[in-house]
């Protein structure tokens, strides 16, 4: 049931000013600020109709995102924003559904929903601000905390093997999987933009430092702190010998190999596939069902059903 765009309204330009809402409540220096700034930039670049943008989130520091963006938005419960966003996306193909959250929200409490949202290939754009720690609840071990990380719940250092987000997402069936770093605004804008353009379950994991509880976590990927921000070189399909060496983003195994590199690893698009979305598949079914009923009204269809029950 698609909904037509409202007509006859002045098209306001989508500026940073128009998109700014409450002042973020994040700690000064939190990586999430830069993610927010990049999101504004991406929207400014794309000039989507303002009322068609939806920002949704679960619970966590990063999940406060929707309050800071002046669009239709929702702040849901911890870990369940993927199915919430899926409902919005499936019922309203006219909308652009953006989803924000942290590593705990995505990979721990929401891990199973993530898995199934990806498997169903629902058309949403999901930005995961991964800080390797639980920020909002003040420094407990997260599913991405490295072994040895000392938190309030692992004073001796974390012992559980962390989730590898890229591997998890690729194996779950996400159809666009990318990785970025919160110190790299242009790269974040590009990754979010490509994710947004991609029809299907598209995820960008952004290493976003929690200055409060895990300072320096991502310095190894930050050139200004002496680290290396190394990009994935994607195949250009130009037949050159160099291209042989480049990454084929449609190759799942190659994506896995990249995801196995030691920290901080590479940044960019790991995987992209054009398999059909659940949105499209269900819409086909709805359409063929509608055709079978021959355009009857709801009243007429139900009446026919009842006639068979007499």
């Amino acid at each position, binding site marked *: *049931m698609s*909904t037509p*765009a*409202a007509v006859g*309204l002045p098209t*306001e330009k989508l500026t940073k000013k*128009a998109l700014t*809402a*409450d002042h973020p409540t994040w700690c000064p220096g939190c990586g999430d600020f830069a993610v927010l700034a990049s999101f504004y930039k991406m929207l400014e670049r794309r000039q989507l109709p*303002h*009322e*068609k*943008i*939806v920002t949704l989130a679960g619970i966590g520091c990063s999940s406060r995102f*929707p*309050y800071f963006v*002046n*669009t*239709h*938005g*929702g*702040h*849901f*419960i911890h870990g*369940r*924003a*993927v*199915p*919430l966003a*899926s*409902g*919005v*996306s*499936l*019922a*309203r193909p*006219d*909308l652009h559904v953006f989803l924000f959250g942290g590593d705990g929200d995505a990979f721990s409490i929401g891990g*199973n*929903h993530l*898995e*199934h949202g990806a498997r169903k290939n629902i058309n949403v754009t999901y930005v995961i601000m991964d800080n390797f720690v639980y920020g909002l609840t003040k420094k407990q071990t997260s599913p991405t905390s490295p072994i040895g990380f000392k938190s309030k719940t692992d004073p001796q250092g974390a012992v559980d093997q962390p989730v590898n987000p890229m591997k998890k997402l690729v194996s779950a069936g996400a159809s666009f999987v990318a990785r970025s770093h919160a110190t790299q605004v242009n790269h974040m804008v590009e990754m979010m933009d490509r994710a947004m353009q991609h029809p299907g379950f598209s995820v960008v994991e952004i290493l976003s430092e929690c200055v409060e509880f895990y300072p320096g976590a991502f310095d190894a990927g930050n050139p200004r702190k002496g680290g290396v921000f190394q990009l994935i070189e994607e195949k250009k399909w130009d037949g050159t010998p160099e291209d042989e060496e480049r990454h084929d983003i449609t190759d799942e195994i190659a994506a896995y190999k990249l995801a196995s590199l030691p920290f901080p690893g590479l940044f960019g698009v790991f995987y992209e596939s054009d398999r059909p979305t659940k949105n499209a598949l*269900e819409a086909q*079914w*709805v359409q063929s*069902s*509608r055709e*079978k*009923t021959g355009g009857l*009204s*709801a*009243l007429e*269809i*139900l*009446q026919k*059903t*009842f006639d*068979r*029950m*007499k």
Partner: protein
Amino acid sequence: MTSESHPVSPQPTTHRADLRPEHICDAVIRLAGNSQDGIQSAGALLARLAGRSDQDVMTYMTIPSTISGGPSLFQVRVGTGEVLSPGDEADFLVAFYQHSYKDNIAFLREGGVLLYDSDHVEPDFDDKRFVYVGIPITGLTVEALGGTAKDKGKNIFVLGLLARIFDFDVEKIKRLLREKFGGKNESVLNTALMAFQAGYAYPVGNVLSTRYKFEVSEDAGGRPQLTMDGNQAIAYGLIAAGVRYGAAYPITPWTTIMETLRAELPKYGGLFVQCEDEIGAVSMALGFSYSGHLAITGSSGPGISLKTEAIGWATMAEMPLIIVNVQRGGPSTGLPTNVEQSDLYQAIYGGHGDSPRVVLAPSNVEDCFYIAIEAARIARTYSTPVFILSDASLATRIQAFDEPDLKSLVVEFLPNLTPRAPGFQPYPLEGLTQHAPPGTPMLGGVYPTVTGLEHDEMGHPTGSPRLHMAMTAKRRNKLQKLAGEIPTPEVFGDPEGEVLLVGWGSTYGPIHEAVKTASEAGESLSALHLRHLNPLPNGLEKIFAKFRRVVVVEMNDQGLYGYGQLASLLRARYCDPKITSLNKTSGLTFRVKEILEGVLK
């Protein structure tokens, strides 16, 4: 309509082949076999036949929780007047096996007919209370259908026998068989027709002296009757109410609602999604609702528990949502295929924080249809989660009821995306919340956020003590406003007297039958049935004041302090010590006799 006054009274075996039919107005037929014998489908055909013949009908069935094998039964009560319960006792027991006979003979009334498969059952003829009719059902079915079908088709053979005994309209049955089996390959339909013919042709008059014919219903020629089960009625009620989206996870006895909606909604341009679990399902349903399409999710006990956090969000965010709980025996996996009304507290109070929500319960299959419409109306008007508490007995019970006037009921809703004026507030303190779904242009340039955090009128988070008090009151007040618009239910029977029975949900039938029976016997007994459980309708105290005793009849435990769940609520609400409880926790529905004995002892 108790067994004592029952008009069916077969005579002992004679050898006359054909007799004039005896006219009857009520019969309870119980089919007992194993789950793979298809007695459910034979019973359902019988029920639909009755519905098509303007007879009132009600069924009752138990299915084993194992997939195949295990005893199974299906009871059909067909009547010319109003049929209120599936019947305390059977007039006819069809026993396929020795265990079917043994387990069910206690439910056959004295003078009742035991129709048994003489290939499998050896009844105790010394027990002179019953009429014994032995027919080699298995052998005759195998003979009629030839080798490959083995004894598959016994159910339809029995249908043929019953058609002969009750003088049912054969053409109507054949039409039903064609509808049921016609879609599959030709040979399936032919086999069914052959089995039916064999049963119908059996000279049952040689062993049973009486044939029966139902009185023509007074309503005949009135509104046509629809025959369906409670879960179907809920599904179609939701469709009539314009509900087009939903999500759920399978669990007995809820599942058939989602199966129906999954198949039906696309025809209406909607969608039902099977999710990874109940939490995902309620979350997706809330996504549908937020997008402007009021949605439905549902489950049974354990699955409802999983949904509770998200339902708390719906209360806080004031998001409309319909949650169907088809109750079964609990707690935990409990009695998955039995009936209980033990989730009332959960529905009303099962949320964290002060989270008032609306709880409705349908009284019978017909009411499942109308309560779904009522739930949708309330959810939309008050922008709130609404529970429908059905139960396992309604879920599978097939009943015939007057065809609803669809023209006056069916509504279509599209998300309201008309631009909102500057100053729009998602959470106004004065007035009801009506969200602006995404896609709505906000002319003031300020976009709303829906949230589970306590918030101000714009949806911004706040820790303000003043606002938490004011918003808590807002969420409570709207339900009080709703209470004011619910009609006070009417008393069935004398409006004043000795005892008032209070019920909710599927106990409607046996309670009302109990009142009728007691009144016929000159006892003072009335009944009040509640469809709205939270908020309660106003004015109940005035009704209670007219009775010396108020007994709440419900299928749940008497609790630590001696009162069932609704009884406790009513006692707390009205501080009235004359409110007491009659409880049942066997996992089976109330029998009329049990209510009468329990109340009038």
